[in-house]
Every structure is written in structure tokens, then in C-alpha cells.
């Protein structure tokens, strides 16, 4: 009598049951994770309400001077909600944060630029601001609009600019000698090709995941990256908390 077939069938059944068991355990772990995230979200919501109502004393005074330039990354699918973006900018204006960079991967915010400026009373685009934005204390807001194209593609443009400049020198009869591609040189080249904005001190991410979604890499060396959740759940208290926590951070810059 052949016993191999039932034995094989049994082992396949055991294997299938084992796989089902593993899958169930996997779903269970993810359910636990979702419960944990929900608890954190509820805690954030309650804390945000307390901050908005002024119950928590420590959030009443913010050392805004430390936050010279703020970047906001918004999930492109939410960036169409111009009214929410304007509300966020109005809150920032009232807090005293005047220099803001708005980023979304797909460039939706760039297309909504006019609508946004139309709804804000005292905002200017960074292109119209001559001085180094972070050095002065403006009465108006300065807004910069950035998308994915201003990151890696801009770096390529800067590389081509440097390359062409060196080609020109060669054609003028000079030799290419001692030309060093250094950080300051590349920084200047990036400004020439249109990437004028400074490095943000703080980057707030309004989206499902804490990820900068392709914000220009050159500009975020020491930028604090904070996840705020979806733009659909925009809360004033959470914004205050994020800025307050940033003002308490101490950086060594590697030393």
C-alpha cells in the first residue's frame, strides 16, 4: 500500500494551515499597530485641543526667532485644498512665521500660486524679495513654491551650468586648471539655475507618512522633519506644538 500520497497530502495540509496561521498573526500585528496609531492620534487631538484653548501654559510663548525658514510638504492629492493651505499660512502669519516654503511633489501648489496669493493679504513671492530672506524680519510673508523638479532636476541643471562655464573658459583660450567643484560653487550654481531658497530649519509633512517626498535634497542637511498627519486633520494646536518642540531642540552639527 502506498503511504507516500496520504503523507504528502497531510504535510501539504499542515503547511497550508501553517501559512494561514502566519497570515492571521500578520493581520493581528497590523491591527495592533493600527490601534496603537489610533491611541497616539487621540492623544495628539486632545493635546491639540488643550493647546488651542490655552490650557497648557508652556505653549503660550514661542521663541519664533529660532525658526527663520519653515518648509511645508503637502501630499499632492491634498494640495488641491487651497482653502486649507491658506488657513495654515494664515495661522503661521499670526504666530510670526513669515518665511515659508511650500512643497508638493506634483507641483499642484505651484499651479495654485495665484489663488493662494489672492487670499493672503500680505504675502510676496520669494522672487520679489531681494535681501537674503532669513536675515530680515519682514512685515509681510515670503512664500516660495517648490516641487520635485526643483530637487534632482535642478541639481542636473546646476551640473550642466558648471560644465558649460568650464567649456567656455576652454574656448576662450584658457586652460582648465585648479577649478574645484566645491559645496559653495555648487550652491552658487543652484542659485543661478533658480534654486534661491535657503535651508529650512523645520519641515512639516502633511501626508500619511513621515517622508520628505523628494524635497530638494541639497537644502535639508540639518532640517528637523516632523510628521503632522493628513492636511484633512489640520489643527492649530498641533502646529503650535511642532514649532514649540522645534525651538527646544539642540543640534551639535556633528561636533
Amino acid at each position: 500500500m502506498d503511504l507516500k500520497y496520504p503523507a504528502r497530502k497531510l504535510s501539504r495540509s499542515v503547511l497550508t494551515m501553517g501559512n494561514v496561521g502566519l497570515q492571521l498573526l500578520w493581520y493581528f500585528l497590523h491591527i495592533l499597530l493600527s490601534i496603537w496609531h489610533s491611541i497616539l492620534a487621540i492623544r495628539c487631538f486632545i493635546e491639540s485641543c488643550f493647546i488651542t484653548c490655552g490650557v497648557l501654559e508652556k505653549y503660550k510663548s514661542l521663541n519664533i526667532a529660532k525658526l527663520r525658514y519653515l518648509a511645508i510638504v503637502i501630499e499632492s492629492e491634498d494640495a488641491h485644498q487651497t482653502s486649507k493651505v491658506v488657513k495654515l499660512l494664515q495661522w503661521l502669519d499670526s504666530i510670526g512665521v513669515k518665511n515659508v516654503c511650500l512643497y508638493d511633489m506634483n507641483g499642484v501648489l505651484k499651479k495654485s500660486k495665484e489663488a493662494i496669493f489672492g487670499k493672503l493679504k500680505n504675502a510676496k513671492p520669494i522672487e520679489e524679495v531681494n535681501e537674503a530672506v532669513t536675515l530680515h524680519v519682514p512685515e509681510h510673508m515670503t512664500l516660495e513654491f517648490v516641487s520635485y523638479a526643483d530637487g534632482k532636476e535642478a541639481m542636473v541643471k546646476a551640473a550642466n551650468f558648471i560644465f558649460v562655464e568650464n567649456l567656455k573658459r576652454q574656448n576662450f583660450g584658457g586652460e582648465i586648471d585648479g577649478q574645484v567643484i566645491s559645496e559653495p560653487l555648487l550652491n552658487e550654481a543652484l542659485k543661478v539655475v533658480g534654486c534661491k531658497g535657503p535651508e529650512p530649519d523645520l519641515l512639516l509633512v502633511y501626508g500619511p507618512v513621515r517622508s520628505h517626498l523628494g524635497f530638494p535634497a541639497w537644502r535639508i542637511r540639518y532640517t528637523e522633519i516632523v510628521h503632522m498627519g493628513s492636511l484633512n486633520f489640520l489643527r492649530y494646536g498641533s502646529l503650535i506644538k511642532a514649532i514649540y518642540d522645534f525651538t527646544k531642540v539642540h543640534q551639535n552639527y556633528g561636533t
Partner: protein
Amino acid sequence: MQISNGYTVHLLEGLYCYLRRLLFKVLCVGEVPNHIAFIMDGNRRFAKKNNLAEGEGHKAGFSALLSILRYCYELGVKYVTVYAFSIDNFRRKPKDVQSLMELMRQKIEELLQQESIINEYGVRLHFIGNISMLSEPVRVAVDKAMRVTAHNNHRVLFICVAYTSRDEMVHAVYQSCKQKWSHLNGEEPSKVVKNGVFENKVEKHSVPPPSSCSLIELVDVERNMYMAVAPDPDILIRTSGEARLSNFLLWQAGTCPLYAPSSLWPEIGLRHLVLAVLNFQKYHHYLENKKEKKKHKNF
């Protein structure tokens, strides 16, 4: 009594190992990250917190690294990148830099020993960064480690030393310019001096006039990144609760979830890795979608 205690400890260790592997089997039902990057922050604070001598924090950090590597490889992660020493760290006190260099040399030698995790899992070592900035003994150890492990092809450990993202981008732009220059001059690319200096006395061939058209393309720059030898990270973990990247993988981590547990690096454990992987699995489709959109559209 001592023998039975030893036996119990051995049994418990075996049980822990079995449960860990079972947990990893559960995690493998979902997507397993191919590449995890770590910023190993908090060694000095750990030493201070536990009243340890200077340098002991980093030694504890190395032990933590070995544990995390084991967990990653058991889970099935192929690429692991660690930020061991930044170019910014050279600004520390010379005595601290010197002792870190010496520790690095010792630990590289330890990794190459027969019974180390590197041989156990067939790990290839890659050192990423401006290696010429390291002291001579460390450079020798680095060269040896890369040579000795070059034949390993199951897993890869990238150790970023004398590295910053900006330096990596500058290097990539320089290399791209140099290659394009050689191409236009009809020359073979010759040996490069690794300080970004164009070669002197380039022969005057007739080169096409500069134009506004794109000569260097994104693929050229990406190909010349130090980290071009690996796929972009799927998860980036920074310990000590710090929320910044500190000049690490800025170019590569655009669509990568950033996870910042508050534990110091020597305190990192299995639970942090498991949480990071579960978060990655939860948002995997969303981030893959972002990566696809990046490839196909110009915004």
C-alpha cells in the same frame, strides 16, 4: 547549581531565538524591506547616562550594530547602510577623532574574523564616503575589508565613513562633468584626483560650442553617487528621537519612511526593527506609487 543555571540560560536563549524567527516568519507575510539605513545616534549620551568611560558608548554601539545586523539578515533584508562617521564629525576634538578612528580600525578587523557575522551571513562590506580623509591605518583596514569580502554576494553592509550627502552630490557632479568632458574630447577618462580638481593642461581639441541643451543628464549624476551601488533605502531609522537626517542619504531618502525611536543607539532592539517594518508594510503601496510617479512624470 551553576550547571543547571547555565542550562536554563541556554534554553531560554534558544527559545528566544526560536520565537524571534517565528516573528520574522510572520513579518515575511508582508513586504520585507530590501534596504534599511540606520543613523547610529546616541553613543556618547549612552556613555554619559550609564557613567561609562569615554569610548565605551561607541563600543556598546558596535554590539548593538551586530545585533541589529543579525535581526535584519534573519528577516531577509539584503542591504543595510549605517552612518558611522560624518565629515562633520572631524570637527570634534582631535583626541576624540583619533580614538574613534582607532576604534573603527579595531572593529573592522573584528568584523573580518572567521566567526563574525560577516562570514556567517556572507556579507560584502562597502565603505562609502570620502575615504581619502581617513587616517592611513583606517584606510588600510577599509581596503582590506572590501577586498576580503568582495566575493560575498548574499548580503551587503554599507558603512558610511567620512560621508555627507552634500559631499556625495558634489562628487557626483564633478564625476559627471569629468566624464562628459572626456567624452567630448574623445578621450578615455583618466585617473581622477579625488579632490574635485579638473585635470590640468587639457589638450585643445575642437569642442562643440557651449549650448543651452542638456549635456549631463540625471542618470549621469545618479550613476556617480557613492550609493549608486545600492537601491534606495526602504526605511531610514535614526535613534535618539532626533528628527533630522544630518546630511545622510538626502538624495536617496525622498520616498522613504523616516522612523525615529527615542532610544539611544546602544539601546536599539528587536521591537524597534519590528515596528519600523510594520510601518513600512502599512505604507508600502503608497510610497511605491510615489516612486512610480517620480519615474514617469516631470513636475
